[in-house]
């Protein structure tokens, strides 16, 4: 008996260490994928600026203006990353909490299991046996049918301490498994968070992408005219001011997006905590 308990506690410790490493790797994957997506987008914006210079036949590289535009885009990407990172960490914390509860359930299983032998030596169990023997004896010797019924009911209602021990074990295993299910669902949410961040970054690009589509519709004569004769003022208006105006739109739509992400996080955490409460409540009912 001692070996099973010790082995269980050792496996719990191993599981703990593995789960910590899992969380670290998942965070690294989140950062890596999100940063890769960001780098692609920033490169597109930077390349696009350079293409615009060529398109308008500008030889100066407008370095300062380009840097300001990139910097403004960076701020907006940063806001989204920070909010999604918060969401990611919140989910990880909930997973951690549930995995702790699982280990507590396992440790309690070990502790309940260790108490098994002492149940048979307890006063409670001796009393149960005495009563059981007494009621069975009375059922056998009593001629009166209502007395027989009375002792049969007493026998049925007699609580065997071993049953209570078994019920506790079953309830603890059930608790462990229910948390497993919930952890699995939360881990899927971590993947969803990465995808959602990449989609948010894609959305930031929509204003620039729309304007490029418009530009591509211009016919060859318009394009040639711009390349040869577009003034600095025209370039400033059609590229620099336009791109800054797009970023103004992004800033505005980001305010709403960040709110949406925050509410998603709050609702998700609330839902998880509700489900955790249900699991604990079912356990307490089962072990009453």
């Amino acid at each position, binding site marked *: 008996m001692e070996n*099973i308990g010790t*082995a*269980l506690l050792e*496996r*719990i410790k*191993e*599981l703990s260490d*593995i*789960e910590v*490493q*899992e969380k*670290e*790797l*998942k*965070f*690294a*994957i989140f*950062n*890596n*994928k*999100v*940063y*890769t997506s*960001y780098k692609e987008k*920033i490169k597109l914006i930077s390349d696009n600026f350079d293409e615009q210079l060529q398109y308008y036949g500008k030889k100066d590289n407008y370095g300062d203006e380009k840097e300001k535009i990139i910097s403004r885009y*960076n701020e907006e*990407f*940063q806001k989204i*990353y920070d909010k999604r*990172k918060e969401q990611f960490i919140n989910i990880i914390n909930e997973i951690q909490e549930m995995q702790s509860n699982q280990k507590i359930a*396992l440790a309690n*299983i070990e502790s309940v*299991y260790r108490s098994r032998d002492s149940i048979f030596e307890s006063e409670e169990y001796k009393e149960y046996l005495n009563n059981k023997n007494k009621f069975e004896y009375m059922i056998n010797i009593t001629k009166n049918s209502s007395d027989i019924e009375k002792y049969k009911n007493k026998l049925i209602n007699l609580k065997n301490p071993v049953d209570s021990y078994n019920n506790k*074990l079953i309830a603890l*295993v059930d608790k462990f498994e229910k948390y497993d299910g919930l952890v699995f669902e939360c881990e899927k949410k971590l993947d969803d968070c990465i995808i959602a961040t990449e989609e948010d970054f894609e959305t930031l690009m929509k204003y620039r992408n729309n304007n490029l589509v418009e530009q591509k519709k211009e016919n060859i004569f318009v394009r040639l005219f711009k390349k040869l004769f577009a003034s600095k003022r025209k370039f400033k208006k059609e590229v620099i001011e336009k791109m800054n105006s797009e970023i103004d739109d992004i800033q505005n739509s980001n305010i709403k997006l960040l709110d949406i992400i925050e509410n998603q996080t709050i609702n998700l955490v609330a839902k998880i905590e509700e489900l955790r409460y249900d699991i604990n409540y079912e356990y307490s009912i089962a072990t009453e």
Partner: protein
Amino acid sequence: MEVEKLGEEFIDGGIINLDNSSVDIYENALKKIGIKKEEVIKQINNLLKKI
């Protein structure tokens, strides 16, 4: 844009740089420790059956 720095951690018997390695390294490491985790959980379930 700056992402949070995670530093180096001892994972699956070796040190992994959680900031500058490729995503494949992280995903492979995750897969390996996932296999270990399944093994530990199997052992736990076997112990629970004996109780």
